[in-house]
């Protein structure tokens, strides 16, 4: 069975509407893109869209610490990751870039702090 995916490319402001046709998890056609970058973007979007997740976790001092996944994680894991991070408590002081949670939602990606907090 052939499935058609419509993808809006976000590589540049042109915002091409790309159609990707997929059969059994392999792409058989990509059209609508005005440049090569669109091909890669559409391929990733169709096979496994990934996003950097940003949220906040609790600090032990009662404040909230902004964090992000160190790399994009599969989009389908985002809600699981959020739920897991709700339980995380981070000790102060913490430095920007420090890992505050490992392998979030089984993605093999760590979650890092995006700011420093002294006390």
């Amino acid at each position, binding site marked *: 069975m052939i499935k058609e995916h419509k993808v809006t490319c976000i590589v540049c*402001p042109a915002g091409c509407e790309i159609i990707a046709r997929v059969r059994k998890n392999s792409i058989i056609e990509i059209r609508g893109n005005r440049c090569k970058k669109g091909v890669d973007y559409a391929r990733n979007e169709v096979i496994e869209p990934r996003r950097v997740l940003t949220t906040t976790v609790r600090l032990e001092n009662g404040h909230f610490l*902004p964090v992000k996944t160190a790399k994009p994680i599969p989009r389908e894991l985002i809600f699981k990751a959020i739920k897991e991070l709700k339980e995380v408590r981070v000790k102060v002081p913490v430095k920007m870039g420090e890992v505050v949670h490992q392998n979030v939602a089984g993605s093999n990606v760590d979650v890092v702090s995006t700011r420093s907090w002294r006390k």
Partner: protein
Amino acid sequence: MRVRELVIIGGGPAGLSAAVEAKKLGVEDVLIIDRESEPGGILKQCIHTGFGLHVFKEELTGPEYAERFIAEAQERGIEIMLDTMVIELTDDRRILAVNSRDGLVELKARAVILAMGCRERTRGAINIPGFRPSGIFTAGTAQYFINIEGYMPGKEVVILGSGDVGLIMARHLTLEGAKVKCVAEIMPYSNGLTRNIVQCLQDFNIPLLLNHTVVNIHGKKRVEGVTIAEVDLNRKPRMETARYVSCDTLLLSVGLIPENELSRMAKVQIDEVTGGPVVDQSMQTTIEGIFACGNVLHVHDVVDLVTIEARVAARGAADFLKQKKKRIRPATVPVIPGEGLRYVLPQRIDLDGALEETQNFFMRSVKPMDRGRLLIQSDRGVVMSKNLKFIRPSEMISIKVKREILQQNNCLKISLCEGSENGD
């Protein structure tokens, strides 16, 4: 009264970038005054990514972008006076500020950079009828509650306005467990970046209702719902299309206004379209020694451009401080927006001031165009033209103009017409 060399009002991205650059250029005494207890401005609560692609060539979150500048400011020994509100600025650059440690602080600055940023338009600015229950927030306030205070503003949300803050909040509220019912946009196009429409709305199947607005708010103590309706070509609601959407929260992302109370006090001339000061190529306002950059000058879509603009203002201030004698009224070339453009910045060129080989101009179109032709005209006719693609009011247009063009004409008008010459 203490005399300081350079005082920067506001410690957000514009103020921090300007301070670091001024120090690099040899200004020894740089003071930032900020009303909050930490520097960084709005970046502190913008925890999403998308910052720094131009300046750092990598994608950072807001707090990371801020921290890089805060760290550099500290390394360079820039003084940041926190929890301090500037309440008065005069045209001879006297500054009156207050805080709870020192009470009244009076300073005289040899140069001032305005970097106060902007604030959000509220319900009052757009006149939505209905009761005044709790549950109506500007998008930025909701962002502050969630990311800084850790409170959720509501469970079922309608967002009015599809500017970037509204789009970012649609995603963020969804991630944090709320149901975003729709984003209504009165215009036929979104005012947000395409990438945000994809990543924030399409990723989560949040409907974007173009040509729609909120015409009534229901609920006495707490918002219970809103009535939304389609608008006609004149953006007047067509009441026959009105429908009720239940929700407990309405977020407004309906525009930003540069915060220029202090600038007005100092008699700085304000451009009615940008809502910010009229500046020349060094970001100097119409008052000598007072410069402006960032969202206080005009609302930016990307923080990187704020940093770049702040560096220009810092250079302007540094040059001004080195200047030996006072200058007589400078000769200026006005640069005005013509058809197709909402505004052009800088609004004037000071011919006696420093002029680079090419000068950057920033402008916004009045409507989206797939192709457009930008024309620069003087009394001698068209002096420069350029074809542009994918023009969006939400994305600032930047062009470089040769120094000679600025020197050879007494007035320039920049306009944008739809389509392009030669069909290319």
